[in-house]
């Protein structure tokens, strides 16, 4: 038996403070008292152990107002008038510091979010740095970006981000906004504020002018205050479709621009001539990467009926090899579920799957006693009408359906209010392109899955949202064009 001994990444690299204030106008400040219960300090918890990591401040409406006014002043007096070449240099500095402090940020991300250190170290952090590098290079080239000779920024951007890729979602929001000349007020997710607060320190280290980036930690109420603040010119939100809908209603009739990146229920389509072993890797990566907490997760496997047995056997064999456990162990593949709330939701939907007649399978797993954990699960015998085929579970749960022809695959793949991503597995190039044309999804992965790059635009069709992040297209959301 080849037992991998524990290989823990050390926590010592992170200098975690016992408590954090809000980052407004270049400094960490205390929040003002909130009305409802007067208590403004909350804790952020390690979902793998339920241990308290630090205290954070939840911003109230007065705090948000302070932040927006600081962002406005910075925009009017400093960042707006600044040349693109100088904005670029600040962003390059931030990118460099992120690279230098990558390990620290990766460990903190795993502690706060629950994702395996291998993923935060090898996927999240490199992409975070790369996003800042990429957009730094646009700051002084906006006239060449295809939006006219002198595209102007929008002003103050209010940005609300989710808990699944906390620092990466921050990078996707902050980098293009700043490159285009806007200033930002960013609200991290309630359960994952810590890397954003470390990012604030990095802004200080880079001597970023005060007020250009403001971080207001808090809950949904804080987010609402940011979105609804009249001083915000541009709103960007990544999160659930339900909240996205509320935001769209809230900005209706105002002059605020809005981009949304919401949920998904992507189909991962495997044809009989797929490169089988790589397709199995792609299925596994598609739904179990980041514990399935991925908006573009391949949560529906559409497998061609003629190869159903072969694919399922290979898939189960592979899933049985997944290592579930301590996120800080370098050999862990699947970490903790982010919160008790999310775990409850996953369980509710998995129970619905069973109740509706689908058949669950999980490999044997030793789940820890403390913390929030869910074993990787595959449901077979799923049909389109089942809740687990229609609703986003946002967890390590795969629903398997079958199809016979390419046209049927397209029909089933598109038969959803969502439209974020899709996967196609076949060795036949023309089939890939034929399907890609017909799939109503903003990102199509062929013979791969969950690949991201700062140069590659990402975003959804239909109720998965509107607007694109990444690439030249990603500038559009932050320019007055």
């Amino acid at each position: 038996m080849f037992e991998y001994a524990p290989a823990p990444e050390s926590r010592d690299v992170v200098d975690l403070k016992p408590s954090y204030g809000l980052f407004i106008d270049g400094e960490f400040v205390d929040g003002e008292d909130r009305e409802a219960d007067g208590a403004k300090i909350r804790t952020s918890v390690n979902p793998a152990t339920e241990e308290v990591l630090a205290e954070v401040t939840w911003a109230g409406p007065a705090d948000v107002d302070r932040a927006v006014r600081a962002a406005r002043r910075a925009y009017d007096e400093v960042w707006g008038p600044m040349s693109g070449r100088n904005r670029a240099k600040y962003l390059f500095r931030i990118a460099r510091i992120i690279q230098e402090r990558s390990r620290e940020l990766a460990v903190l991300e795993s502690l706060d979010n629950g994702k395996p250190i291998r993923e935060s170290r090898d996927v999240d952090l490199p992409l975070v740095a790369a996003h800042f590098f990429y957009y730094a290079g646009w700051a002084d080239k906006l006239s060449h970006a295809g939006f006219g000779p002198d595209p102007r920024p929008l002003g103050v951007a209010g940005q609300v981000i989710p808990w699944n890729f906390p620092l990466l979602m921050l990078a996707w929001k902050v980098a293009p906004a700043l490159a285009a000349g806007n200033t930002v007020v960013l609200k991290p997710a309630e359960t994952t504020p810590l890397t954003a607060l470390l990012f604030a320190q990095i802004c200080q280290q880079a001597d970023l002018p005060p007020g250009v980036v403001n971080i207001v930690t808090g809950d949904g109420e804080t987010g609402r205050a940011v979105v609804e603040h009249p001083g915000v010119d541009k709103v960007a939100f990544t999160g659930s479709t339900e909240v996205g809908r509320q935001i769209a209603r809230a900005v209706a009739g105002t002059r605020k621009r809005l981009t949304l990146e919401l949920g998904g229920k992507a189909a991962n389509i495997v044809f009989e001539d797929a490169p089988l072993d790589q397709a199995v890797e792609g299925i596994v990566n598609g739904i179990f990467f980041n514990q399935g907490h991925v908006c573009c997760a391949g949560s529906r496997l559409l497998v061609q009926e003629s190869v159903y047995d072969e694919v399922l056997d290979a898939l189960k064999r592979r899933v049985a090899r997944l290592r579930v456990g301590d996120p800080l162990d370098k050999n862990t593949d699947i970490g903790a579920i982010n919160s008790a709330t999310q775990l409850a939701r996953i369980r509710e939907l998995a129970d619905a799957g069973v109740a509706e007649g689908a058949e669950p399978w999980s490999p044997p797993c030793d789940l820890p006693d403390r913390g929030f954990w869910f074993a990787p699960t595959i449901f077979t015998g799923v049909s389109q009408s089942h809740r687990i085929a229609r609703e986003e579970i946002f967890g390590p749960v795969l629903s398997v359906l079958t199809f016979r022809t390419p046209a049927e695959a397209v029909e089933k793949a598109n038969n959803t209010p969502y439209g974020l991503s899709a996967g196609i597995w076949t060795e036949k190039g023309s089939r890939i392109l034929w399907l890609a044309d017909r799939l109503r999804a903003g990102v199509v992965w062929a013979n791969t899955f969950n690949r991201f790059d700062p140069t590659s635009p990402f975003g959804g069709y239909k109720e998965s949202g509107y607007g694109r992040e990444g690439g030249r297209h990603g500038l559009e959301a932050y320019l007055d064009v």
Partner: protein
Amino acid sequence: MLAGMTATPVSAQSDLTEVGRSEATLRRFLHGLPGVDQVGAEQRAAMLATRSIKTTAKAWAIDLAIRMVDLTTLEGADTPGKVRALTAKARRPDPTDPSCPAVAAVCVYPSMVPVAAEALRGSGIHLASVATAFPSGQAPLEVRLADTRAAVAAGADEIDMVLNRGAFLAGRYLEVFEEIVAVRAACGDAHLKVILETGELVTYDNVRRASWLAMLAGADFIKTSTGKVPVAATLPVTLVMLEAVRDFRAATGRQVGVKPAGGIRTAKDAIRYLVVVNETAGEDWLHPDRFRFGASSLLNDLLMQRNRLRTGVYSGPDYVTLD
């Protein structure tokens, strides 16, 4: 150790015997195997290479790797003296530590087999000989078979043959198949490794097909390389071969071994290979009867890493023998 042979459906087994009957059936079978996506395969291997194997796991892996080494010398300049020195090292890799295990085999040219056989007598270490006009294989079939028989007669209990790459790349699969069958027969009781020379096959699709072809023809082991061309063993190529042996056992019930050879120089490399074996074919292949390393300098790095774990300080070349 060779646990859990899966039950084989009879119909599946007889289907595969039919495969080698003609050029047409063999081609249809080999070209019908699933393709390998190069980028995906390389990414999977790269991800497995990030596994962190420390402390007890590392010690276990190092000792296993030593026991899997086919200690090799294949030079025109080989002499009895050189071969004797190598066999002494094979028996007792670390003169300062008797607890260090012996290697799996010694691998030499046919002309050196008698010397090696004498030197290894009573040790339990296997004696592998390359044969079939190694490394190019470019000689008439009768010559290649005579080469094989001579090595077996002189005392080799393992034969490493080379695949006929020219015929394979030209699509003459039946010719390649029948040659392997003939060499297998010439081996008698010796076990047969078929060297695919993956560096010359180039694509992973070819590696998959050549793996199946060799196994269908009776190979006991499939081996990546001769070590004599620029591109030798790599992690992704070995991954593809391990997938092939896994699938072959599922289809036929027969378990074939894998031997990466050439370019594996460090203990870190070797441990990565063991991880790939573990997470692809499974623990049934984590045994010297089913997995070998074709290497020469690897052994010394394994010994230095073993010493570091033992003593707590980094070792150096002065503390291992150069044979």
